């Protein structure tokens, strides 16, 4: 203890305060538990990942082909009722493609997970970073440019952009149409909505007092962007991710359904009714063949077969319900995970606020 009246600078130099070590993951989870919602989402996604890995291991090189049995293709109506779920075929049989649905859905899981993950990765990488940048530099030329490009892109539904680019590619190089191109193109056109919502949040964050103090203490713009603005702008991103799954399956489902079912032609130029469905790929389809395992294509063919248009005949539910459940389950799992993480973040914000208030509360 220094003598009264002595200057603190005159005493011996104080040792630097040790920087506390960042707690390990287990400690962090103990302090801030994930919550039931997040765990449920993680568990469901884990199940999907397990199914995907098992499909890769079990089917190996035949993963990209549905098992086709010609006997099941184009059966007469009375025969269809016998193709329902059984011990041999737990999800029933899809007569349009002549395939066992259980194997088809199983084989499609790794492809669909990869498609959704790839598109969302692009979406997040572009939408989050550009949106936060625009929000942080509100009113600047950069902000105006990002908003201008984003608004122009979102003037046309995203699936139109995707198909336009694929159609252009099909004109120049038909062999380049594949799922990788589809994922890249979709990721590039889907980001404006994410960027717009992230920008709104980043604008608010950029005006917070703690950022003022960071600027005052000499933090660079890059540091502020990566350390403060980006991490604090995740809430709208987490709300947007589950919604962005919808347009992906919109393209993968609606276009083959329209092509095979709603056009009511056999694609040979005549509009005569077809005796039974012979599915083909739409012209700009990213799938290599109609027998490629993919949930959207399976749902389209299943709906066309099981829910016939303009006849109100018998409904064969098993032809579309398993695939629909698989798609919905993926959406629900993502939503649970994202909502849980968003709730955890907001809970943290509230607890920080409460701690701050407690600290500043005047003592009696």
């Amino acid at each position: 203890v220094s003598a009264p009246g002595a200057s603190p600078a005159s005493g011996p130099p104080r040792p630097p305060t040790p920087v506390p070590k960042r707690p390990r993951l287990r400690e962090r989870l103990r302090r801030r538990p994930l919550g039931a919602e997040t765990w449920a989402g993680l568990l469901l996604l884990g199940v999907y990942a397990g199914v995907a890995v098992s499909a890769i291991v079990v089917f190996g090189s035949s993963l990209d082909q549905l098992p086709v049995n010609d006997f099941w293709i184009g059966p007469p109506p009375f025969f269809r009722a016998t193709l329902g779920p059984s011990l041999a075929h737990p999800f029933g049989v899809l007569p349009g493609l002549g395939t066992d649905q259980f194997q088809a859905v199983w084989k499609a899981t790794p492809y669909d997970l990869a498609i959704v993950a790839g598109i969302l990765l692009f979406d997040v990488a572009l939408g989050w970073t550009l949106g936060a940048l625009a929000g942080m530099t509100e009113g600047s030329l950069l902000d105006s440019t990002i908003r201008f490009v984003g608004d122009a892109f979102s003037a046309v539904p995203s699936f139109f952009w995707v198909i336009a680019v694929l159609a252009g590619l099909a004109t120049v190089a038909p062999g380049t149409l594949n799922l990788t191109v589809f994922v890249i193109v979709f990721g590039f056109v889907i980001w404006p909505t994410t960027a717009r919502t992230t920008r709104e949040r980043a604008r608010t964050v950029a005006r917070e007092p703690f950022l003022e103090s960071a600027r005052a203490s000499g933090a660079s713009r890059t540091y502020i962007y990566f350390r403060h603005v980006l991490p604090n702008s995740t809430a709208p991103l987490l709300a947007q991710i589950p919604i962005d799954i919808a347009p992906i399956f919109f393209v993968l489902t609606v276009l083959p359904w329209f092509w095979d079912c709603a056009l009511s032609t056999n694609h040979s130029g005549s509009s005569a009714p077809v005796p039974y469905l012979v599915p083909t790929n739409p012209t700009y389809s990213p799938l290599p063949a109609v027998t490629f395992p993919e949930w959207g294509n399976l749902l389209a063919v299943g709906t066309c077969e099981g829910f016939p248009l303009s006849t109100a005949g018998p409904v064969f539910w098993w032809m579309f319900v398993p695939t629909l459940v698989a798609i919905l389950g993926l959406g629900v799992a993502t939503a649970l995970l994202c909502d849980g993480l968003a709730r955890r973040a907001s809970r943290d914000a509230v607890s920080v606020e409460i701690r701050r208030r407690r600290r500043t509360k005047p003592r009696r």
Partner: protein
Amino acid sequence: MRGGTVPYGMPRSSPDRAWRRSPLVRFLLQRAALVPAQLLFVLLVLYLAIEEPANIALQQNLGIAGFFRGFSTMVVNDFTGNWGLSGFIQYKGIALTQVYAWMLPQSVELAVFALGISTAIAYPVSLWSGWTRRAGVDASVQATSLLGTIVPVFLVGLPVITALFFGFISVFHDLPDQGVVPTVDWWFYYNGGTFPSWIVDTRFTQPTGFPLIDGAIHGAWSFEVVTLFKTLLQASVIALVYVTIFLRHGRTVARAASREPHLMAARSRGVPERTLLWKHTGRRVRPTFLLVFALTLPAYLGTQFVVEATFVDPGIGFISLSALTGFESVANGLEGLEVMMFLLALLVIVWLFFLDVAARRWDPREVVRP
């Protein structure tokens, strides 16, 4: 001072309050300049995506001069309605402008009904779900909106058709899923199989092209009843799907508005909760709801397109999905797809402009009150 540069007490005839000083006029000038710029940008991307690959394949309009020549030709053609010929089977060789002139009115009429029903449902439901603090309501709204977004639209329309199919036939003697206007079977039943002179190509009406208006003009009231019910059926399916998409955004807006301090002040003055909800919060969220609608307009259009295809309407939805699958565009050199995207961009960008203007006019925070 709120929302403007005019100081309090300034007389209206003051020379300082020139029309250019008005924030609304300034906003209009700035936003109106953006409309053609954004349209040109969309057309540029479209040219690069669709026309340029075709030019490369055909070895024409290459080089920088060729690029500008081709792009300017495309812009002029798009804006002057020189859209080429239809490649669609039923209308092969007919000018695309004529095909659009036949099909657009039916889609617009359907949109008017669908948006009316959607507004009637979405506005109160979004407002109430944002206002209420019950956890069950919150969870059910989130689940409904998520499922409504992910379930394909045709899987909502098909059960409706199946459920109503035989009932509709027995009451109206017509098929519920074959377009908006009565089918050939109905005309056989009511008119001996002959079409009146104001029906074109068995499915379009004259002189306006709007079936309900044309039916009323010609006094065909039985036609009106069938057309109205078919339109309401399709509009309800569109509304059912679109409301769930709107709900997710609308609820968030309403929730944020319901926490504002002026509501707390009004509550402390004893204003009833119902007035707080429908009058105070309602007026506050209306402009933002308009912007949410603008944000979800592409989703709305996608929904209507698929419903039109499900109900086999000869409308814009059918043409656009034909173009997207390549059914029309391949025969048409991708012109059908390019024109469709140009028209969508035009619609959405101009609509956004008018919504911005309307939101600015209706937002109580933007009004200058001396």
